[in-house]
């Protein structure tokens, strides 16, 4: 824990670099994410958005730089990354639910095996979470019996079951049919309203405009511009930002 530890800073990223073999994907990214903040990460594909997110819970090993989560440098070899990950919920583009388990079993798995919560307690808490995402009637269905939007909501409940301090969303709606995007965004909006700290890689303009406190625009491995949705969408200062926004708005 360093001296200047500020309890309001959840995650501090300092000069993060990531190489895949010779490919330099992240070229020195630095930012701070404070408690309760909703940060949207936008940018062209291949710009390093997902890699940035996945480095922050070390699903990808950072090549250099520091990532300080609640005062702990998680790139340090002394850190038990499994413990850190229990504080960070993650939702994936392709849901990645466990297909051999029912919705409630998906939600219970980590609390029971990592937090060693009793079956009864985990079930009770799991059902409450499924209720929260509007799926209490689907608790005993297997993932392949659920629609994409329902699967993604179960995945959110599964991540919440570990009572994380912060939630990462890696393009949570880009694999969904248009009519299912709303139900997932509603759940995310509710979480934001409850004060959950969130980092969201997404291009859902409406959601970002409404829920995000800050946008990071990541292109070619660097943060090109950052600011509130208002600033970024209405008065972008960088040409790269204008180009990118022009492309996604013209669709």
């Amino acid at each position, binding site marked *: 824990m360093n001296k200047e530890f500020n309890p309001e800073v959840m995650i501090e990223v300092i000069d993060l670099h990531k190489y895949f073999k010779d490919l330099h994907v992240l070229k020195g990214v630095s930012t701070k994410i404070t408690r309760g903040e909703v940060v949207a990460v936008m940018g062209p594909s291949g710009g390093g958005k997902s890699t940035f997110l996945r480095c922050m819970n070390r699903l990808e090993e950072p090549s250099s730089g520091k990532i300080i989560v609640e005062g702990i440098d998680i790139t340090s070899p002394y850190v038990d990354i499994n413990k850190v*990950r229990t504080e960070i919920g993650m939702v994936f583009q*392709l849901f*990645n*639910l*466990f297909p051999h388990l029912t919705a409630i079993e998906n939600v219970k*798995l980590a609390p029971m*095996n990592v937090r060693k919560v009793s079956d009864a307690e985990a079930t009770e808490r799991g059902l409450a979470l499924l209720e929260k995402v509007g799926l209490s009637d689907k608790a005993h269905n297997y993932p392949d019996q659920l629609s994409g939007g329902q699967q993604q909501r179960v995945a959110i409940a599964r*991540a919440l079951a570990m009572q994380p301090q912060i939630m990462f969303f890696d393009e949570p709606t880009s694999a969904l049919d248009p009519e299912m995007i709303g139900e997932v965004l509603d759940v995310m909006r509710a979480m934001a309203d409850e004060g959950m700290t969130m980092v969201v890689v997404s291009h859902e303009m409406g959601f970002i405009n409404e829920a995000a406190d800050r946008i990071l625009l990541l292109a070619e491995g660097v943060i090109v511009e950052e600011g509130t949705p208002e600033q970024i969408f209405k008065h972008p200062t960088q040409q790269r930002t204008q180009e990118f926004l022009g492309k996604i708005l013209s669709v």
Partner: protein
Amino acid sequence: MNYESARANIPSHFIRSRPGWTYWIRRYEFIFVALALLVGYALFLLPGEDATPVNRGVSIGVFLLLVLAWSANILIDGEKSDWFKGAVAFGLVFVLCWLFYKYSGTKWDKLGRSFFNFAKMEGSWPQLFKGLLVTLQLAAISALFSILIGLILAVLRSFESPTLNIFLIAYLDLFRSIPMIVLMVFIYYALPYLGVALESVMATVLALSLGYSAYTAESFRAGIESIHFGQVEAARALGLTRLQTMRLVIIPQAIKVVIPPLTGNLVAMLKDTAVASVVASPELLKRAKEVYVGKANPTALVAAAIIYLIVLLPLARLANMLENRMKAR
């Protein structure tokens, strides 16, 4: 839709000149008259035992050609029903067998006396069934060990440690390329020189377990690798350790993928227990050989073959069924 309007939508050069017409050679009238003629040929024109070889050869050859032509005429016709084609195919096989029976010059009675003389087997059946029991026990115990060892090897392999992999790959390659009979003989006859003397049954179980654990490991590895990488990421992101991920997420899913090839392995292993007769394990083939020697009659070997078939055919079917069900999912 009537015929005229159906035809109106078809370009003129695709329209049959004589709609509904069947070529005369494919009409049932012709087919059944030809069949009657073939039966007549078979009854009255095929030569007897006393015909000259040339006469026999020509006569049988012509008959065979006619039968094949008649069958082919039906089998290649897309408009005949499947059951009719099936009947024709079986009929063709029957005719070929019958020709072989009649003209191959085999001494059928002698063959029957030595290989199918089940009267001589009286009193020896219990011995064979005791052998079968040992065979099944050998297979069951070896299956258990090989699955256990195979699973451990596959899990170790999935850690992708370069150093560990050298040893694992060496093990897998060694036991997959060494013939079972060589392995068994080596373990039973050579290991005692190293101070490890195993009973024949133990040697058999060890050889089968080692040999088949390599195949089992490969099946498990394929199963583990078939699980989408996102599953591992999701589990790790929740804070599960590598081993928990393996135990709670990967293996339960991999098992379903692995069961069909594993069943196939078990069928092969059950068959390979017969090799154990060279190291004097008292299994089915060994027992059959004893009866063969005791009665001076090889019917026991045929009996053993039939017992193997009765046990293994359903298992082979089962493996096939499981595989098809996997593909259908």
